[in-house]
């Protein structure tokens, strides 16, 4: 079996439902003149798991932040055709964001940290507490509600961070290399648990990573990016069914898929 068959370039010919996010000719130039992202065109379908894969400096984080609304594109548009819009016509999608660091409030317990988005939205305290507690147990931290971030390990802090991002039941979860700082064993565990959450809750996931293995393991689709300037080099479909587990991680199919993704990444880096 040729790996290229399994990992095909997506054609995009079939008529699709309206995408959740539609990125059109987006470029981003920073004040110092650096072009972080150039002419990116990308549609993200509702419910899919997409990885943005590329070397550091390829603008994948910048792209993710623009999708989240934290940075405006210098050129081009990011549209949310199916999301609610405010009075001024700006899309206000319900999204969750996971940073590279856990980014927890050190003065608040795990429960209070997860409650934050609900508190900011004005949800009453009792409901917020109940929802946050449910979310904490979903990420495997039942019993750690009253622990402070200081008392949690790196992996557990990241779980709290994911719980916080998902507590509002967002339609899209944006993750910026969330597991990069974790050890291999913890990272595998968190990958598995993230996939289960995604499988159960059906949010759209956008996952920034520089790890080929991680992107292949998690994603249905990998957007390969190149640096200087950041641009999309390939859009790959990972043709393997979910749910995935250690069986998949050790399969020949996974190895083949990784090889193809690697070749694409290498090509992208070479320009």
């Amino acid at each position, binding site marked *: 079996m040729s790996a290229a068959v399994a990992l095909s370039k997506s054609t995009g010919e079939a008529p699709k439902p309206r995408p959740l996010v539609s990125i059109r000719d987006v470029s981003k130039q920073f004040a110092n003149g650096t072009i972080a992202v150039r002419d990116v065109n990308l549609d993200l379908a509702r419910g899919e798991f997409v990885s943005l894969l590329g070397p550091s400096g390829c603008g994948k984080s910048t792209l993710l932040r623009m999708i989240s609304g934290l940075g405006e594109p210098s050129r081009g548009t990011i549209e949310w055709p199916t999301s609610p819009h405010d009075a001024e016509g700006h899309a206000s999608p319900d999204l969750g964001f996971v940073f590279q660091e856990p980014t927890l409030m*050190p003065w608040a317990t795990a429960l209070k940290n997860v409650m934050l988005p609900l*508190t900011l939205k004005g949800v009453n305290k009792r409901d917020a507490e109940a929802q946050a507690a449910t979310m904490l*147990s979903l990420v495997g931290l039942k019993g750690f509600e009253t622990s402070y971030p200081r*008392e949690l390990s790196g992996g*557990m802090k990241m779980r709290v961070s994911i719980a916080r991002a998902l507590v509002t039941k967002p339609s899209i979860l944006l993750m910026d290399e969330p597991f990069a700082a974790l050890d291999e064993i913890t990272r595998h565990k968190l990958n598995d648990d993230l996939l*289960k959450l995604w499988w159960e809750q059906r949010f759209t996931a956008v996952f920034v990573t520089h790890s080929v293995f991680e992107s292949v393991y998690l994603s249905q689709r990998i957007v390969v990016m190149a640096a200087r300037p950041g641009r999309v080099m390939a859009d790959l479909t990972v043709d393997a069914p979910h749910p995935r587990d250690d069986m998949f991680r050790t399969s020949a199919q996974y190895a083949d898929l990784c090889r193809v993704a690697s070749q694409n990444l290498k090509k992208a880096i070479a320009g």
Partner: protein
Amino acid sequence: MSDITAPVHVPHDGTDAEARPIFTEERRILGIARSTWPGILAPIVIGIFALGFWEWIVHARNIPHYVLPGPWLIAKTLVADWGTLSGSLWITLRITFAALIAAVTVGVALAIVFTQSKWLEMSLFPYAVILQVTPVVSIAPLIIIWVGDINLSLLICAWIVAFFPILSNTIMGLNSADHNLINLFQLYKANRWQALRYLRLPAALPYFLGGLKISGGLALIGAVVAEFVAGSGGNASGLAYRILESGYQLRIPRMFAALIMISVTGIAIFLLTSWISHIFLRKWHESAIKREN
């Protein structure tokens, strides 16, 4: 190979059990942790030796007590004059704490205003600095003349000395919130009030408490210095006034007794502010957490 059907509900992952910091209760003697005892005993031993030497040299050299009274005489004076001295202590304490409360209120309020408006900060902060760098001794006479009421003048002088550390520390604290957390608040469209209430104020707390520790001592120093300047001209009779008065009357043991009371007050204020700081930070801040290596 791990179980495919393992539920998501796992207590912790892989290395976590070992990575988790272990908090152990240390053995306590008289309610104080064992490791803190040397820090208490060593200075006490040194102190006893120093006092003993002092007492000895006063007797051995026959130093008259109006030049240098021995510690025993000072202690006796402290007890004998307690009526007068405790009244003075109360007056000094009142001014010190009123000044500290005013410093906290104005310092924190100004810090919040400054961090909400860059323009206000730019226009007003230099004047706060001028107030801070001008020696209080040099403006105290003016304040006493202008204000008229001596207690209020002393309060203002002590406040001027005490408020700057709180202002500058709190400003720094309010601006020190984690940048990613600020972004997170933006993503959830938090308004200014929410960002202040849930992010900036808690982030500023350790800085504020650091400022409070400095300001507590400074408020006392400010009160004492201003009282010295006011001198016998004023009708206040705080500890500084007692020192001046004892100097004029050559009652040096009493002077020392008043001096010791000021020092003890300063130490007490330091311990109090340190304790307050510990209470607020013990759960989460690095500075307050003991960790086993």
